[in-house]
């Protein structure tokens, strides 16, 4: 048995292992991999996500068990220090030796740190590994603690530097990007697109300093600023260097491999170095006298080297390497492909620029107008995939090439067809080298039937993910061309959309989940279709969550939100946020009796946390006896209607916002919907109730109320949009009944009103026609349905505490009265909290 040693367990080293072990002839080889980093290979391309979630596991390319399952001996935390080429051995830092038959160097690169005076000072970082990020995070936290308006600079305005700029912004420091060249991303952008990008980034709070050469880093032992010469200085508390990379080629020197003058181990198109049986791949390999700082060419190299060793000499590295890139920088699309910019004698350029919208599009076309040579897109790169494919496949251009970037005249549509028009050879996923033919073929041959199947089989989209929209299109188009319908079905158990299922349940008068499975589904259901059907039943029959509790989302089943340690929260309804002193005292007493953590919520009510399952009925009994009801804080249903104090007290108030908020909250309480619903009522346009941040918002104006719909806070905030102006209370309710009922009937599961409106054909104008002009002739039906739901309202906690059978649900064990001894609380600021998670 022959031994292959891989030095470096980074992205490319990992890919080598994967390709090697996937090959039929691999079992004749033993594979040993050395990694200097403490953990198995991870996704460096998405390294910045670590700033958001600090979840190293999520970045892992494969868990440690993958290596052992595939018979790979992975030795992490162990640097290889020498190659003894005569005896075919490597030696590691801990003094061990290992012999090889083939050696693959995948040692990657290290950040280039320019020799500036003072770069060794504390507070100067590079950006390459998880450990680098951890150090930056803890340093930034230290700075913020003593200096809330601290600043951090990034040296280098390239692709990586701008990504670091975003990271600084997320860490809460003021970002400054310092670039030596007179433009941003000098390798990818021309001056004009760089200007557009700069304006956009500045509008987001990132300061850009171009054409600056840093002379020295200021400060005693800790960085305090940067000096650019001639009295030009920038005060900063932290610096991240992102000034390019240098190949980690030091091992090449230990055994006399041929090296480039500026570093890198020279390889040919078989990835062979100058010494037989030693290969180099990834960012350490100098191919065509270039180091390619991108992962896709590295993956190709891994595939070539694996095939060469396994006896497929015909697999070679192509001579031309595509350096096209597309990325989203802080939500701004930036892409460049082919030759992004060039002098006029080489080709003609068509440029569209709109600075007010931060848009720039450029394509370069050959003199005969027939071929696309390259281009740049800033601000909107939706067309990147298809333009890139046209370039790669030398496809012929439309007569008016400008239509490629400004859209066909008149219809605003696209000048080119869809991805399905590409040639079969077009490479769709460059990370995994998957062609269009392979994707479509897998469906036509019947091997795959869905996007999930295609991803499982080909691994397309699992690299950088940039090709996902195209793969989705290809899969859908191919399925369609074969007469298979593609739709947003709920899950494997129900081949229907939510709206279709709503219709079926209503027409067939289906009452229980098992009945639904029998009549239109299959299997036993799952955590997706069960709550979806529960919500549909609630819309049609307005039963509470108690009727079939096992199909409710866990929080609905126990009528409370589960918390970190398995305890629950209790949120009584406080309509409009108005509460009497007596009721406040009851809440206080209950919280004291059961030792609950209390907090005022963002929804103008009080949350009592840390209740044990067994205590929930007793707690609610006390609250209900004092006149409270369930606040449905756990349900996909109406939460709160926030109010401001309004004209009863406020000197600016135009109407009684509290009274109206209470009326609306009482009307829609308990209403189950595809996602949660929130409302707000403000007494004047100062908008203290933040009504426009809600699914429905009402604001008092001269002559009535303005009604806004489809807003939300949360992850993607959206202001609600005006539906009707200066209407009276009755009309507000009439329109709201129609709007809410129409949304509840037609939205997909877990789709809030804003996304629903986005997808509604015709948008707000169509919604106005339906709600105000009754264009669908549905208004009366919607109003009647809503009224019947309102009439059937019951407090589900009241039901639960009054029924012995239902109360059984609220007990941790069924065979003993004992409590969960795994639930631990610790003290915090005079109250308690769950013991923090450690993993």
């Amino acid at each position, binding site marked *: 048995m022959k031994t292959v040693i891989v030095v470096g367990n980074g992205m490319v080293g990992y890919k080598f292992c994967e390709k090697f072990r996937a090959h039929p002839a691999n079992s004749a080889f033993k594979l040993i991999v050395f990694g200097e980093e403490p953990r198995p290979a991870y996704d460096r391309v998405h390294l910045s996500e670590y700033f958001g979630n600090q979840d190293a596991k999520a970045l892992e390319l494969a868990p440690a068990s993958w290596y052992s399952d595939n018979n790979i001996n992975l030795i992490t935390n162990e640097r290889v220090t020498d190659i003894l080429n005569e005896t075919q051995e490597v030696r590691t830092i801990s003094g061990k030796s290992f012999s090889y038959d083939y050696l693959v160097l995948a040692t990657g690169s290290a950040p280039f740190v320019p020799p500036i005076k003072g770069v060794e000072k504390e507070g100067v970082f590079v950006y390459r590994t998880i450990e680098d990020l951890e150090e930056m995070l803890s340093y930034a936290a230290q700075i913020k603690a003593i200096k809330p308006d601290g600043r951090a600079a990034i040296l280098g305005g390239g692709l990586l530097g701008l990504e670091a700029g975003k990271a600084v912004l997320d860490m809460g420091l003021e970002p400054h990007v310092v670039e030596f060249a007179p433009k941003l991303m000098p390798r990818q952008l021309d001056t004009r697109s760089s200007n557009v990008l700069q304006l956009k980034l500045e509008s987001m709070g990132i300061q850009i300093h171009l054409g600056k050469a840093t002379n020295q880093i200021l400060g005693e032992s800790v960085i305090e600023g940067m000096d650019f010469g001639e009295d030009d200085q920038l005060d900063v508390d932290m610096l991240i260097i992102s000034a390019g990379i240098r190949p980690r080629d030091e091992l090449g020197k230990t055994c006399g491999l041929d090296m480039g003058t500026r570093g890198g181990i020279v390889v040919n198109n078989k990835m062979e170095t100058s010494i037989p049986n030693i290969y180099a791949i990834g960012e350490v390999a100098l191919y065509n006298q270039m180091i390619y700082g991108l992962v896709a060419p590295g993956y190709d190299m891994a595939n070539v080297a694996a095939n060469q060793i396994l006896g497929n000499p015909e697999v070679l590295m192509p001579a031309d390497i595509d350096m096209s890139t597309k990325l989203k920088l802080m939500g701004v699309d930036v892409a460049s492909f082919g030759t992004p910019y060039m002098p006029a004698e080489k080709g003609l350029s068509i440029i569209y620029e709109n600075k007010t919208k931060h848009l720039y599009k450029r394509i370069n076309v050959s003199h005969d107008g027939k071929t696309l040579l390259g281009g740049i897109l800033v601000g909107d790169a939706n067309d990147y995939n298809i333009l890139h494919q046209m370039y790669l496949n030398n496809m012929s251009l439309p007569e008016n090439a400008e239509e490629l970037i400004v859209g066909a005249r008149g219809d605003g549509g696209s000048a080119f067809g869809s991805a399905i028009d590409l040639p079969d050879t077009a490479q769709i996923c460059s990370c995994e080298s998957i062609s269009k033919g392979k994707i479509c073929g897998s469906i036509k041959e019947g091997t795959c039937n869905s996007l999930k199947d295609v991803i499982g089989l080909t691994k397309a989209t699992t690299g950088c993910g940039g090709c996902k929209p195209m793969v989705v299109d290809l899969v859908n188009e191919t399925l369609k061309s074969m007469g298979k319908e593609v739709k947003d079905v709920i899950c494997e158990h129900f081949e229907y959309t939510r709206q279709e299922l709503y219709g079926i349940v209503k027409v067939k008068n289906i009452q229980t989940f098992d009945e639904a*499975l029998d009549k239109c589904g299959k*299997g036993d*259901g*799952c955590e997706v*279709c069960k709550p979806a059907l529960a919500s549909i039943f609630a819309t049609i029959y307005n039963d509470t969550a108690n009727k079939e*509790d096992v199909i409710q989302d866990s929080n609905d089943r126990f009528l409370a939100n589960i918390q970190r340690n*398995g305890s629950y929260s209790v949120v009584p309804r406080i309509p409009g946020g108005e509460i009497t002193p007596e009721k406040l005292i009851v809440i206080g007493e209950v919280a004291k009796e059961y030792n609950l953590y209390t907090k005022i919520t963002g929804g103008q009510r009080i949350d009592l946390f840390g209740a044990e399952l067994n205590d929930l009925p007793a707690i609610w009994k006390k609250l209900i006896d004092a006149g409270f009801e369930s606040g449905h804080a756990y349900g996909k249903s109406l939460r709160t209607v926030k109010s401001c104090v309004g004209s009863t007290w406020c000197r600016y108030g135009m109407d009684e916002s509290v009274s109206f908020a209470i009326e609306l909250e009482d009307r829609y309480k308990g209403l189950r919907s595809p996602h949660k619903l929130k409302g707000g009522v403000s007494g004047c346009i100062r908008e203290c109730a933040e009504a426009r941040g809600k699914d429905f918002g009402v604001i008092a104006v001269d002559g009535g109320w303005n009604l806004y719909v489809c807003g939300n806070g949360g992850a993607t905030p959206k202001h609600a949009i005006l539906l009707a102006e200066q209407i009276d209370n009755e009309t507000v309710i009439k329109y709201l009944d129609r709007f809410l009922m129409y949304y509840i009937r037609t939205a997909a599961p877990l789709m809030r009103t804003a996304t629903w409106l986005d997808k509604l054909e015709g948008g707000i104008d169509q919604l106005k026609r339906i709600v105000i002009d009754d264009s669908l002739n549905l208004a009366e039906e919607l109003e009647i349905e809503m009224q019947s739901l309102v009439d059937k309202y019951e407090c589900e906690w009241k039901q639960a505490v009054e029924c012995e059978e239902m109360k059984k*649900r609220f007990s941790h064990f069924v*065979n003993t009265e004992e409590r969960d001894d795994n639930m631990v609380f610790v003290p915090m600021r005079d109250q308690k909290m769950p013991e923090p998670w450690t993993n």
Partner: protein
Amino acid sequence: MDSILSEYTTVDPTTVSVWFKACNVNDIPENGGACVKYKNKQIAVYHYKRKQTWYACQNLCPHKMEMVLSRGMLGDADGIAKVACPMHKKTFSLESGENLNGDLPAIAIYPIKIEDGFVYIGFSE
């Protein structure tokens, strides 16, 4: 933390030495689950009504080490019975214990039988 996890290991039906009489069949909700205590162990028990099948597994979710799996939702993935944890919806096969939507360690599965209206869980100790 890992020490509680190590208290739960799958019991092969052929090695059962104790059949613990856990509860009445009516104590377990139809198409749902509940938790029983055996010595210092918490065991989740589930009942699929349509197929009349029963499953038992550890109540401890290996994701965040909380005793919550009995409150999870039942279902199947390609015909394999599974439970979704109520905390973050990690799903586990009730047949093999395997984590179906991630790479958490498998949960322990216990043999279960129904006799004269009672639920029995098998242990081998």
